[in-house]
């Protein structure tokens, strides 16, 4: 026992009495004290006093601790907690104790329950000791697994934390995530109170004009496809590793090839094993050669299993002398932003591989002007300015704006909804959300449009035969009737959907099957390969396929994206009514009406002006320079009203190139680059670069080329447009989140300033939300500083007072 210096013996006795009164003396000491107490009434009286005071303290202080609602966490905070609780146990522990845990599960379940009961008993005792008035019911509360409100909280995500896990069983891990789960228990967190956005959108039933023709800021359709970013099929061949946040990722040898491989119809005989085409639809848990892990375990850990992020190596600075051409495919996906937002709302930093900067930039609407004439499907706008995070560098923003289609000229639409109504679709973030979204969409339809509804997986068959868009009541009634539940398998499904689409085909219109699901694809076709084949065939006939993903835990992001790709449609992930509105109403035209396809960009830099450049983002979209003129190479599509933005960071001549990767001077070719025709003519000496674009008409096969030469305006950053400033802030934010080696002097304060300067005259809700996200990221980062526990200060002799 440490020496304590007591003032006197009595003091020491009191110390012991106090400890005794509080039950803190061990048996020997207690008996000793009891001896002393026996014949000492004074001492006994003191003990009573101490006991009385203890009781009073416990009583009053205890009540204080349960006093009122002020001490409660907010609804949002609790939701975040419960969302995290729904995630799996750390997989590292799982691996290490896998064998062990099987036994725990199956043989020691009783023991565990007993331990928990004992623990509970201990806690209850503690409560009683402090005489808390409020009896916290320790008996289990019913766990609601379905929310009753439209939940705004982002779905529970999870992470593959352990590199050990990944290393020890890469194949099994990636495949385990493919277990298709039929259970009705959704991992989604019930909202315990009114959802934040409940009141906003649902009341709006007036028809939203299809295209908003008026001034900027009123939501000219932003880039469309919401993809749950980053859920690309892992390439299991390479040894998985973890990035510094502990997320498992797999190295992709060649992003461009991989992407094109994903787009190509036939499985390529590349070095990627078949798993990269992600056999997601198999119903069996494909646990390779291990002891079969109990199904319950895989169910438990499904949510972290579906997530794996590819690593993205930031595009490095390229020297113009070696690489004068930069070529990439445009992309209008926006999923990465929604995904990053989800992480931040759960008070976590996203894994670096999830932060695809181009998708984050493209999430927002920008005020680019559309094309002047009707022949070109889009307009190109280039802006230049200094780079906020590296003042001697320049930023070049290339923006495309697809032409709007006026309401009067919008093509007629023949839409067939193919809806998953399996039991798991019951939760608030799935079927109910889809229904609300559909109703909003229906409101914008006219008598030239047609809508049909087919269901699968819970019931099967026709819910609504093809109905003109003007008969809104009929359609809305059918939507209302939609219900999830039941367990019938397969049946009609996709064949019926396509049949309907074909039967009511509209020439020169939009004919689309829209598949909506949380991840079950038993649409009546036995294998996924067959499914893909069918989708491709039908695409040739002019019926395209888009996919809407909902919910979490079961979401087969990679497959959905693939199906949409094959179907010439888009994949959107819808996690809130606001997203539903964005996808199904605001951007409906853009998503359904393609105005140009296979759009590629190639930039040639002028070595007289530019020493080096770096494309920010688009790492997954890079093309070989020969691909630009190759019309057989697939690329991205632009929809009506879409904007697409790409940003280059440019190192002007005379400024030191970052990084010094020197290349040996050539032996067989001239050291000086030969002057190109423009340079010789002297015409191009002013130009910084030329942007070239190739695109095809939606039903064409031959591409058309556009060229846009660009002269650096030399404008100071303050004069940049607010769009430019905002784009730069998103790019910078992305670089910070990824901890990019090129982030320069960036920090969150700078990002915030930049974003706020880019809010513009009438900041829209999306930009404002972005500002909030910056703050969240900053807070999370700050709170992740290592904790230095501070010991309680030792009692020092108090000055003066005593």
């Amino acid at each position, binding site marked *: 026992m440490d020496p304590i210096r007591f003032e006197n013996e009595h003091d020491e006795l009191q110390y012991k009495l106090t400890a005794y009164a*509080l039950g803190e003396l061990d048996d020997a000491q207690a008996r000793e004290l009891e001896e002393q107490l026996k014949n000492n009434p004074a001492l006994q009286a003191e003990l009573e006093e101490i006991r009385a005071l203890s009781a009073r303290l416990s009583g009053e202080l205890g009540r204080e*601790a349960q006093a009122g609602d002020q001490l409660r966490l907010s609804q949002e905070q609790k939701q975040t907690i419960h969302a995290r609780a729904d995630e799996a146990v750390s997989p590292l522990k799982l691996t290490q104790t896998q064998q062990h845990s099987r036994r725990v599960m199956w043989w020691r379940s009783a023991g565990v329950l007993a331990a928990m009961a004992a623990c509970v008993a201990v806690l209850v005792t503690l409560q009683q000791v402090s005489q808390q008035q409020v009896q916290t019911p320790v008996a289990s509360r019913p766990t609601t697994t379905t929310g009753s409100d439209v939940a705004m909280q982002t779905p529970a995500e999870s992470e593959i934390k352990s590199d050990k896990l990944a290393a020890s069983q890469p194949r099994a891990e990636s495949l385990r995530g493919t277990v298709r789960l039929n259970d009705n228990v959704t991992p989604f967190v019930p909202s315990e109170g009114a959802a934040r956005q409940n009141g906003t959108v649902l009341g709006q039933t007036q028809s939203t004009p299809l295209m908003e023709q008026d001034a900027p800021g009123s939501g000219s359709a932003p880039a469309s496809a919401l993809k749950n970013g980053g859920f690309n099929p892992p390439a299991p061949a390479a040894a998985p590793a973890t990035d510094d946040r502990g997320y498992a990722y797999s190295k992709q040898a060649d992003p461009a090839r991989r992407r094109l491989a994903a787009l190509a119809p036939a499985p390529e005989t590349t070095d990627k094993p078949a798993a990269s085409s992600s056999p997601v639809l198999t119903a069996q848990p494909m646990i390779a050669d291990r002891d079969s892990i109990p199904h319950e375990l895989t169910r438990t850990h499904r949510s972290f299993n579906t997530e794996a992020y590819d690593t993205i190596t930031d595009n490095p600075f390229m020297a113009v002398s070696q690489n004068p051409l930069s070529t990439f495919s445009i992309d209008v996906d926006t999923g990465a932003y929604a995904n990053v937002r989800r992480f931040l709302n759960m008070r976590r930093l996203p894994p670096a591989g999830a932060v695809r900067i181009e998708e984050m930039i493209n999430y927002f609407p920008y005020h680019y002007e559309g094309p002047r004439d009707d022949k070109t499907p889009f307009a190109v706008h280039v802006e230049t300015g200094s780079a906020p995070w590296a003042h001697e560098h320049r930023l070049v923003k290339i923006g495309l704006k697809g032409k709007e289609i006026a309401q009067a000229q919008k093509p007629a639409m023949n839409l067939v909804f193919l809806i998953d109504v399996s039991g798991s679709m019951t939760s608030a973030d799935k079927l109910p959300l889809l229904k609300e979204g559909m109703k909003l969409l229906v409101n914008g339809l006219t008598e030239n449009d047609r809508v049909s509804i087919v269901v699968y997986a819970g019931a099967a068959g026709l819910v609504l035969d093809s109905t003109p868009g003007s008969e809104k009541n009929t359609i809305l009634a059918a939507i209302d009737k939609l219900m999830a539940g039941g367990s019938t398998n397969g049946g009609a499904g996709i064949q019926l959907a396509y049949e309907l689409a074909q039967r009511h085909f509209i020439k020169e219109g939009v004919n689309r099957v829209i598949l909506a699901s949380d991840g079950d694809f038993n649409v009546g076709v036995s294998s996924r390969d067959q499914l893909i084949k069918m989708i491709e065939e039908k695409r040739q006939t002019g019926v395209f396929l888009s996919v809407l993903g909902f919910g979490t835990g079961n979401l087969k992001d990679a497959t959905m994206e693939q199906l949409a790709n094959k179907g010439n449609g888009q994949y959107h992930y819808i996690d809130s009514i606001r997203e539903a509105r964005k996808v199904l109403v605001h951007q409906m035209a853009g998503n359904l009406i393609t105005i140009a396809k296979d759009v590629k960009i190639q930039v040639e830099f002028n070595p007289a002006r530019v020493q080096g450049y770096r494309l920010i983002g688009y790492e997954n979209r890079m093309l070989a320079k020969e691909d630009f003129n190759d019309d057989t190479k697939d690329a991205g599509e632009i929809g009506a009203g879409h904007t697409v933005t790409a940003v280059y960071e440019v190192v002007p001549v005379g400024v030191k190139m970052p990084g010094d990767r020197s290349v040996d001077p050539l032996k067989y070719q001239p050291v000086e680059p030969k002057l190109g025709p423009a340079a010789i003519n002297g015409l191009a000496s002013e130009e910084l670069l030329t942007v070239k674009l190739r695109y095809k008409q939606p039903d064409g096969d031959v591409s058309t080329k556009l060229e846009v030469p660009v002269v650096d305006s030399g404008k100071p950053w303050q004069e940049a447009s607010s769009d430019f400033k905002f784009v730069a802030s998103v790019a910078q934010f992305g670089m910070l989140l990824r901890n990019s080696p090129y982030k320069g002097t960036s920090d969150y304060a700078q990002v915030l300033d930049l974003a706020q300067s880019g809010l513009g005259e009438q900041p829209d809700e999306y930009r404002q939300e972005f500002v909030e996200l910056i703050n969240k990221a900053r807070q999370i980062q700050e709170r992740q500083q290592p904790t230095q526990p*501070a010991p309680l200060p030792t009692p020092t002799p108090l000055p003066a007072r005593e």
Partner: protein
Amino acid sequence: MKQPTHDRQQWIRQAVEQYERPLVLYAWRLTMNLELAREVVQDTFLKLCDQTPEDIQDHLAQWLYTVCRNRSLDVARKEKPMKPLSEPDHLVKDQQTPPPESQLEQAELSQQLAQALSSLPANQQEVIRLKFQHGLSYKDIAKTTQLTTTHVGYLIHVGIKSLRQQLAAQA
């Protein structure tokens, strides 16, 4: 047998239900800011979610309070760099921020007791609260505050003695 996830969810839910308010109160005292206190407690529960129940079940309270305390002190340090933690807080009456409990809607502490308590130095107050308000044992308090068990006992003893004297004087 319940699903493992289900168990965990239950466990977390119970923990939140049971400890939410005391932890917020505890954190409030340490950070002197209710908003911050709630965030700290949220962080604490989030951390709990990352743990395996089996590892913590038997000392849940101590775990929660320790994490909560560390987080609170971190946060307090960042938000108010000027306030040295080592100084006993007996100046609390003179500070501009009123002690948290006075902002509670329902005053649970009698005037007497509140006054007497607030006259104690901060370390004694904290330990006494941990004992009587939060129900931790000497051992758990010691773990949470990084003192020895004996030291904890000593602080409580001195505190109780002081309280007795003051209350007797007031009576």
